[in-house]
C-alpha cells in the first residue's frame, strides 16, 4: 500500500497549477467578475488543448488516457483557482458531445438538485446539455455566485445524468477541496499580515483555532476525495462529496471571519469562494442525498458479518485489500 501521490501525479498537479496561475491568476479572476464573463472561450480551448477535458478519454480516442485520481488532482487545482464554467459537465461530455474533449464546445448539465423547477448553470454559454437532446430555453435568474450564471428552465426538462452522477459528484468534490485548501492559505496569509493589539492576529488562539479547524476539515476531505478516486466506490464518493462540501463552505465562512470586515467586502476573494462552494454543494449529490446513501450502506453493513473479506461494514477497507 502506498497511498501517496506518485511522481507523475505530483508533476501533473504542479503543471496544472502553473498553467492556471499564468492563465487565470487573481487579476484574470477579478476581471472576469467585473465583466461578468463566466466562460472565456479562448481559455476553454486552451484547457481543451492542455487535456483538461480529454484527460480520461483513452489515447486511442484522442484522449490523455489517465484515470479518476489524476482527474481529481486537476480539478482540485481548478477549484483552487476558482476557475469558472461547467468544467465537470464538459469533462464528462468528452467523447460524447462533439467538441467537448477539445474545449471547442461548452457543455453544461442538469446537475442542480432534484426538486422544483430545474435551475441550469451556464445555459447561455453552453452549446449542449449533457444527457439532454436539445438546448432548452430559460429565464435568467440572479445568481448568488457572480461567475455561475443560472437560468430557470420551464417545463418538464429531464436529461438523464444518472450514469454520470458518481463521477460528477467526485470531480465536484475535488473542486470543493481545492477551494477549501485555498481558503486555508488565504486565511493564514491574512492572519500573518494583519496586525491588531500590536501583533499579527494569527498569534491569537481564537484566530489560530479557526485556521486549524479549516485545515483539519480540508485534510479529512482530501483523503476522502483521493481514496474515492482510487476505489470509485459509490459510498466513498458520497462521503467525499459530503466532506468536501463541508470543508469548502465552512472553510470559506471561517476564512471570511478571519478577514473580519475586509472579508465582508466585495474586494476580498473570500465571498467568491463561499458563493461557488454553495453552488457546488447543490450539484450532483447534496448533503442530504449523500447522508441517506451512506446510511443505507451502513444499514447493509451487518456487524455480525464483520469479516473484512465480506461486504458491509468492512468493505471500504477490504476493497483495497482485495487482489
Amino acid at each position, binding site marked *: 500500500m502506498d497511498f501517496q501521490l506518485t511522481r507523475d501525479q505530483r508533476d501533473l498537479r504542479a503543471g496544472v497549477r502553473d498553467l492556471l496561475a499564468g492563465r487565470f491568476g487573481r487579476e484574470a479572476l477579478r476581471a472576469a467578475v467585473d465583466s461578468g464573463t463566466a466562460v472565456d472561450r479562448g481559455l476553454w480551448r486552451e484547457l481543451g488543448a492542455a487535456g483538461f477535458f480529454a484527460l480520461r478519454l483513452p489515447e486511442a480516442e484522442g484522449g490523455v488516457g489517465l484515470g479518476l*485520481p489524476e482527474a481529481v488532482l486537476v480539478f482540485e487545482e481548478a477549484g483552487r483557482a476558482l476557475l469558472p464554467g461547467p468544467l465537470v459537465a464538459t469533462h464528462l461530455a468528452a467523447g460524447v458531445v462533439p467538441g467537448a474533449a477539445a474545449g471547442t464546445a461548452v457543455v453544461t448539465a442538469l446537475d442542480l438538485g432534484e426538486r422544483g423547477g430545474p435551475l441550469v448553470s451556464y445555459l447561455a454559454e453552453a452549446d449542449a446539455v449533457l444527457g439532454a437532446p436539445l438546448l432548452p430555453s430559460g429565464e435568467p435568474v440572479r445568481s448568488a455566485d457572480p461567475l455561475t450564471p443560472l437560468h430557470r428552465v420551464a417545463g418538464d426538462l429531464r436529461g438523464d445524468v444518472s450514469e454520470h452522477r458518481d463521477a460528477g459528484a467526485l470531480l465536484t468534490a475535488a473542486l470543493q477541496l481545492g477551494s477549501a485548501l485555498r481558503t486555508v492559505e488565504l486565511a493564514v496569509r491574512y492572519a500573518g499580515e494583519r496586525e491588531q493589539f500590536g501583533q499579527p492576529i494569527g*498569534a491569537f488562539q481564537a484566530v489560530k483555532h479557526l485556521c486549524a479547524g479549516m485545515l483539519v476539515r480540508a485534510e*479529512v476531505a482530501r483523503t476522502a476525495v483521493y481514496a474515492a478516486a482510487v476505489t470509485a466506490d459509490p459510498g466513498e464518493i458520497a462521503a467525499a462529496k459530503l*466532506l468536501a462540501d463541508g470543508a469548502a463552505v465552512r472553510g470559506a465562512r471561517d476564512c471570511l471571519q478571519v478577514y473580519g470586515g475586509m472579508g465582508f467586502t466585495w474586494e476580498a476573494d473570500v465571498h467568491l469562494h463561499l458563493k461557488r462552494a454553495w453552488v457546488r454543494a447543490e450539484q450532483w449529490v447534496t448533503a442530504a442525498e449523500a447522508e441517506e446513501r451512506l446510511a443505507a450502506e451502513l444499514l447493509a453493513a451487518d456487524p455480525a458479518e464483520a469479516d473484512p473479506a465480506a461486504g458491509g461494514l468492512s468493505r471500504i477497507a477490504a476493497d483495497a485489500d482485495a487482489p
Partner: protein
Amino acid sequence: MDLTYTEEERDFRARLRTWLGKTLPELPAKPSPDDWPGRRAYDLGWQRRLYDAGYAGLHWPVDAGGRGATPTQHLIFLEETERAGAPYVGANFVGLLHAGPTIAAEGTAGQRARWLPPVLRGDEVWCQGFSEPDAGSDLASLRTRAVRDGDDYVITGSKIWTSHAEVADWCELLVRTDPAAAKHRGISWLAMPMDAPGVTIRPLRTLAGSTEFAEVFLDEVRVPVANRVGAENDGWRVTMVTLSFERGTAFVGEVVACRRTLAELARTARANGRWDDPVLRRKLGRLYGEFGALWRLTQWNVSESERSGGVPGTGGSVFKLAYSHARQELYDTAAEVLGAGSLSLDEEWVLDRLSSLSYTIAAGTSQIQRNIVAERILGLPKGR
C-alpha cells in the same frame, strides 16, 4: 496513490488472521476493569503470547528486539487484532508505545538491553510520569526536581494522571535538573523504579468510575544517574520523540472499533424504530462517512511515514483532532438511538461514552493540538 496491499502484506495479514483465530479462544476471561492485578496479569499474558508468536514489538527496530515491520504491516496488525476482538494493549501501552520506542531511539546499548526485552516479553509494565498538577498541557513548566547527589538523582515532587501506576514496574519520568535554565531546557528523562522508597501512589477515580490512573508523590526518591536516557537537560527533545509516536498510530484500532459500533447502532435503530427518524438516520450516515474518511486518513499518514523512513509526521495532530471529536459525536448519537436506555451503566458502550470524554484532553488537549496545527503546519506566529 495506491490502496492495494502487496502480496507480502496480504500474506502477513492472512497469517496473522489465522493465528488470531487459533489463539483468541484460548485466552482466559477478561478481569473486571478495577481488578488491577488481574488486568496486569491478563495484559502481560497477552503480550507474552504475542512475543512467543513473533508479533511483539512489531514496529520496533530489529536491533531493539522488534520485528522492524513496515508502518503498513503495523497498520494491518492493529486493524486485524481489533477486528478479531483481541485484547487491547492495556497496561503495556506506555512500555510498547512510549518508553520502549524512546529508549530504542535514545538509550545506550546497556539501557536497551536492560529495559527493552522485558517490555516485549511481557515481564514489566511501564507508566508515564509526565503531567503534574500544574503542568499538563504546559508540560514544559513541570516542577518535579531532581538534584544530583553522587551517582544518584534525588527527586521530589508529584505527578498526576499516571495510568497503570498501581501495577507499573517502571516510570518514564520527566524531572527538572536545571531550575535556572529556560523551561524547555532544564528537563531530563529518567527511568524510575516504582518500588523505590519515597514513591507513594494514590489512585484517582475517573468520571467513568474506574481507577485507571493515579497521582504519584515523590519524596526524596533516589534514582541512579545511569537511569537517565539522553543527556542531562536534554529530556524535552527526548520526550518529543515519544510524543510523536503517541500521536501517530495510537488510534488505528479504535477507528475500526468505531465503525463496528456504528453498524451495531444502525441495526439497533432499525430494530427500535428510531431509524425512521430522517434527522437521526442522516446523522448516522454522516458519521459512517467520517469514520471511513478517518480510516483513509490513517492509511495516508502511514504511507507518508513509510516514505519518510518510519518517522510519524505532524499529520497525527490533524487526525487526533478530527477523530476525538467524531468519536464523542458517535456516542452522543448512540444516546439518541437508545434514549433512556443510554442511562444504564450495564451497557458497555455507556462506559465507553464516558471514557471518550478523555480523548479531547489526553495526549495534548484539542486546544493544544490546534496550536500545533496552526504553528507547526500552517506557520502562524506563536502567541505571547
